[in-house]
Every structure is written in structure tokens, then in C-alpha cells.
């Protein structure tokens, strides 16, 4: 293997980090629900009554009461509390 090939191999290996896809798990009942979302690129806004998250291609808006936020490794976020609605808003741009 030449030096050039070795460098190209390193770049290829560097670029093949797998990005987690969007994945949603909902657990709980009416009084308390927990939503775990994977593949979240950024947290746009957070308050006790609403959360706005950005994933690849669309936004996720969750509304409810007494919402709390937990951030996990590998772009995973958990929203728990009394969830009233969850919307997926597609980015027209």
C-alpha cells in the first residue's frame, strides 16, 4: 500500500461515521409521558410548556405541561412530563 492510498483510506474511514437516524420512542400514560428522540441535531427552544427540536429534514415540536429535558450521548434527547401534542414540521427550505 502506498502512502497516498493510506491517506485516502484514513479519509474514507473518517467520513464514514454513522449519523443516528431519527427515532422516536414513547412510553407512559396520560398523566406522565416520556418521549425519547434520537437523531436530534439541535435544541432550538425549551420551556416548561413547549420544546422545539431540529432533526435532519424537519422540526419536532412538543407541547405540554411541566416538561423536563434530558440530553444523552449520540444525539439523543428525552422529553418527559404531561405531553399534550407532538408535531413534525417539515422544513420547506
Amino acid at each position, binding site marked *: 500500500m502506498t502512502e497516498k492510498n493510506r491517506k485516502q483510506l484514513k479519509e474514507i474511514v473518517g467520513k464514514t461515521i454513522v449519523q443516528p437516524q431519527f427515532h422516536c420512542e414513547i412510553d407512559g400514560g396520560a398523566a406522565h409521558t416520556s418521549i425519547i428522540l434520537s437523531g436530534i441535531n*439541535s435544541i432550538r*427552544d425549551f*420551556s416548561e410548556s413547549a420544546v422545539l427540536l431540529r432533526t435532519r429534514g424537519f422540526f419536532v415540536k412538543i407541547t405540554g405541561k411541566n*416538561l*423536563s*429535558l434530558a*440530553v444523552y*450521548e449520540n444525539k439523543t434527547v428525552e422529553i418527559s412530563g404531561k405531553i399534550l401534542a407532538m408535531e413534525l414540521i417539515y422544513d420547506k427550505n
Partner: protein
Amino acid sequence: MIRIDYLILGYATVRVDKEHITAVSQLFLKNNIAVRIKNDGSFAVRAREIRRITDILGEIPHTVSEIKGLYGIWLKLKKRYGIIAALIVTLMLCIASTAVVWDVRIDGECEDADEVIAELEDAGLSPGKLWLTLDKNKIELTALKSSDSIAWLNINRRGNVAYVRVVPKEVHNTEPEKSGYASIVASHDCVIEEITVKTGIALVKPGESVRAGEVLISGVIPTELGGGYCYADGEVKGRLTDRISAFTSNEVIEKTYTDKKIGSLSISFFGKEINIFKLYGNSQENCDIIEKKHEIELLGKKIPIFCTVSHVEYFENTGVTLSADELVALTSEKLRHKLLERTACADLISIRTEGAFTDSGYEMYADMVVRENVASIREFQLTAE
């Protein structure tokens, strides 16, 4: 709820303003940090990650509390050697105090509690003894053997006190009264050797031959002796002949072990069973499961840690033809067992044994003369005419 590793290894509470929660959570998401942020903007971080978190937060205003948890307590007390020494000494005293028997108490009702406690002390259980050196089963057996008033004994440990449950012996001096009427009859054809009458009238004498069912001691009192009826009681010994036989077939099924594999391994640790592995199911055919317990002894005492290993030994049932010598030996052994059973409550006077080979095996029989109790109670009722 704080995580158990945070409690042990130490943690601090970082607080940010509510308006900064979005920015803070975005920073943690980008830096792959797992954090649970509460509604008031506070979150817990491990003690060793405080510096990294504060670096990430940068210009965002935040407050960091003092380190909490066990590590936090340790940091506060690090230079207070007296408190640490006191804690260690207290811990050692607590451990040492649980190793000794504090008291021996009798559980339940017992008339001679002091006597029982004295017998237990002789057997080895008394306040001040070490629990580890006590062999509960041995103490129970020794106390039972030496006591005339205890029927059953059980020692239980509750904390540091030994509670002893005692069941006293009940002595019955009088026999229960028999009601109704009965005669004593012969249980076998025999020759009467000895007759002892407690109640009733003897109808036979020693030396007489009787048939099975014949009345030996009558419960009917003749009129010349006062008349009436009674429950006959007495002992009658008779001499009788009997035959026992044994047979062994030519062909027997024998087990031949073909393979042996380890089946399961478990460790018992102070009464708690820990299953390491089990390789066989609950139903296995054509195999024997042999379990061996390996105990550990320390200074001559068995400690409550042992391992149990089981092996699965597979076998095949094969038909085997026995030789003449083997047939005779097996049949003799069977006959010997039957003879022991027959003469358990009888005196053997004479025996003559013979054996013969047949087409299907070997048969042995023994004709014997024994002397035994031939009295059998037969109750009767009076009918009104």
C-alpha cells in the same frame, strides 16, 4: 432522583437561568454529554466532570454548589483525623458485638426454663460464646440426649439473641382403658409354648396344638367363676413352622454407564444459593444426575460457604445373563434379607435351606421353626335377644 454512582463518587448541582436552558442543552448535545436538566435550570454533574462542564458552559452565567455525596463528606472530613478514627472504631465495635451471643431465651411455655438453659450451657450455648464457633445441630442433639424432660428442641438466632423453642415430654403413666369385650385367638397354626393371662380365662395349655383362629384366652367368664364378659388380655407364645423363598431370574437388566458430563455448578454463600450454570433441562432420560457438595473447613469448623457440582451420567440398559455362581449369590442375599425380616420379632429355633435351578432362574427356600407371639385380639359385641 440522584444516581447511585453520583452519590458514592460525589456530585455537584449546577444551576443556570431558565432562559439559558436551551443554549445549555444545545451545548451538551453537541459535546455528547448526558445530563438531565430540571425545570428550574439545575442539573447534577459528577465531581470529576465539574471542570469540563464549566469549560463548556463558558460565558453562560451559572453557579456550582459544593460537592455532595460520600466523596463530598470525605473531602470535608479529610483533615479531621479524630472523626475518621472514631468512625472506624465504631464500625469495628459494631462488627465485634454482633459476633457474640448476648442472651439465651426460651421461646414459648416451659416449666423448667432454668434447667433447659443449664442443659444448653453444658451443650455449649451460653452468653458470650462466638456465633461462628457454635454448631447448632450438635448443641440441639447434645441437649436432647442429656435431658429427660425435653421431647424436641430448636435454636433460632434473632439478632444477637438465641431463642430456643422447647417441646416438653409428656409422660403417660396409665394405659388407656379398653372398652368393649374381646377374646385372644391364635394368629397361626402352632403349638403353645407359653401362656400368660392378665384378664380372661385361658382355654389352652402349653404343649397343645391349636389352629389359626382358635380361642386361646376367652373374654367370656364362666358362671361358676362369676359370669360376665371382659376384654381379654395376655401373652401367648407358640412354636410354628414357616417357609420363605427367593427367586432370581437368569436374565437381568444392568445399567452400563456410557458417558459423564458436568451438569451444573452452584455456590452457597451464607445460605444464599448462587447458580453459576446449569447445562441440563428438568427432564432427562437414561441418565443419572449425581450431585456432590464440597464443603470448606476452617480451623476444624465448617464454614457456610460450599459449592455443589452435579454430573450427568448417561447409561444404557443392557440385558445380562447371570452365571450359576452369581444366581446363587444373589438369591442367597435375597433370602437372607427375607429371613431377617421374618425373624425380627421371633426366635428362630431351626432352619433348613434348599435351592434348585429352574429353566428361568434359581429358587431358594427355607423351612424354619420359630417361636413368636401368636396372640391376636378378636373383639365381640353382645346382641340383645
